[in-house]
């Protein structure tokens, strides 16, 4: 069994490396379409990581929402803006310094949070299995208010989209 565990470990690290590489590709590649595809690959990799950590539901939702929906919309946008799809685009501009500062601040905050959080690695936590029923019950009881707020936001977005689409078409 050790061999299987080892293989799984190697697989996990390979997956993480892959995700990082693809994430790098997203910001480094000069072709927007390639960047978008890298983003899709990175997102799929993250879904794989979720799966690895036994968060099946999260993995499926990650693929469904991010890869299936969000990425499709991004690529759609790239293809519609024709002049972007063909040529290579420069991925930096004059705001690189402020951007760098902002990201540095963000990374510091996140790192601090990660370091300060105690990560209790207990047998119980390892064995925990996020079941669909659990998530569903939680959404409908404890988190019902945020859930409803999100749905209101989504409906607002939908209505806005419809209005914008209507305005473009005079007929």
């Amino acid at each position, binding site marked *: 069994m050790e061999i299987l565990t080892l293989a799984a470990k190697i697989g996990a690290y390979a997956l993480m490396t892959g995700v990082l590489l693809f994430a790098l590709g997203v910001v480094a590649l000069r072709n927007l379409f390639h960047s978008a595809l890298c983003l899709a690959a990175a997102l799929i990799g993250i879904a794989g990581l979720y799966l690895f950590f036994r968060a099946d539901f999260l993995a499926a939702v990650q693929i469904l929402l991010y*890869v299936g929906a969000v990425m499709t919309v991004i690529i759609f946008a790239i293809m519609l803006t024709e002049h972007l799809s063909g040529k290579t685009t420069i991925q930096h501009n004059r705001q690189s310094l402020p951007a760098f500062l902002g990201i540095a601040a963000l990374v510091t905050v996140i790192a601090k949070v990660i370091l300060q959080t105690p990560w209790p690695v207990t047998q119980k936590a390892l064995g925990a299995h996020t079941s669909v029923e659990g998530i569903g019950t939680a959404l409908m009881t404890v988190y019902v208010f945020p859930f409803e707020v999100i749905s209101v936001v989504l409906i607002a977005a939908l209505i806005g989209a419809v209005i914008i689409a209507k305005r473009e078409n005079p007929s």
Partner: protein
Amino acid sequence: MIFDPVFIRLKALFLDLCARFFPEWVVMLASIVISAVVILVMGPVIMMYLTLLERKLLGRIQNRYGPNRVGIWGLLQPVADGIKMFIKEDIVPAHADKIIHLLAPVVTVVPSLMVFLVVPFGNGMTAVNLNIGILYFVAISSITTIPIFMGSWASRNKFSVLGGMRAAAQMISYEAPMTLAIVPVIMASQTLATATIVESQGGGFGMNWFIFTPWGLLGFIIYFFCAIAECNRPPFDLPEAESELIAGFHTEYSGMKFALFYMAEYMNAFTLSAIAVTLFLGGWQGPFLPSWIWFFGKTFLLVCVMIWFRGTFLRFRVDHLMGFAWKFLLPLSLINILIAGLWFLTPAIAAWALTAGLVVASFFVFVKLNKTFVPEKRTYVLAD
């Protein structure tokens, strides 16, 4: 039923044999490898013979024999086609994005093969009994737009781009009603695992299949239309509309790359039918015959219906297609969830009357609301 678990017994036998000579991890690995190999072989073989079946049935519909030259009843025709595809020149357009052009057909096949993982082929014959089975299926089939995008964008062909756009718009649109049509089934069976959904439809000589309820029937029809749209088959074959876009997103593909696109399409047709069978037609449930025969029989029946549709129907237009999804199927599927809820809340006979009435009424209401779908009545003058 001796023949029912024959495949499971075979696999168990083999694994037992392994366990005698090898450590435990080899047995586990062997178990995975066997399932994977079976799926990897079955997918392409099913695709090959689906092409033959399609050509044969279309031929009969059109009063001709289909392919009948290669082998008896043309049974070797798919092999001949495969050889032809292999030896064909692989043409890559000069301005194409070479890497993505190559990757697209390869990536296309992956999601279609991955869906096979959760298909319950028979009693206990699911490769991986994921407890999120249906969600997994929905998630995986939502990826299929990306390889189509890749192929259409990398070809640098206007027809391809148009085809890719249509494919993306169509697949996103039909995903919504399809997922919503599945919801009542999940409500009824209270699980997302495919094998358990099938088990909850057992007994009663097939009368417990979800299709024999008003919401099940409506859900099945919605799901089936969406499935046809998802795998780009007529009458929803806009992305590859031959008479408009030549071949849509795979206009610039030839040889084996083209064959891979085709393989993905036919495997999608099969898996989508298989999931339809799982969700609504009782999966492998059925009297007398082994479970896997029931399963494959029902699935191929649905595939034949898809072929029948292809032989009969014309192609939708792009705006009608969108309208059909958003203005007809989506509201119907939402109402269907309500109907399913009512079904579980009301007693038996009242439930039948109420839900059946609601199904019919909502159908007619939405037809009335969608004026563009309803044919005008025309009069023609016969002048002297």
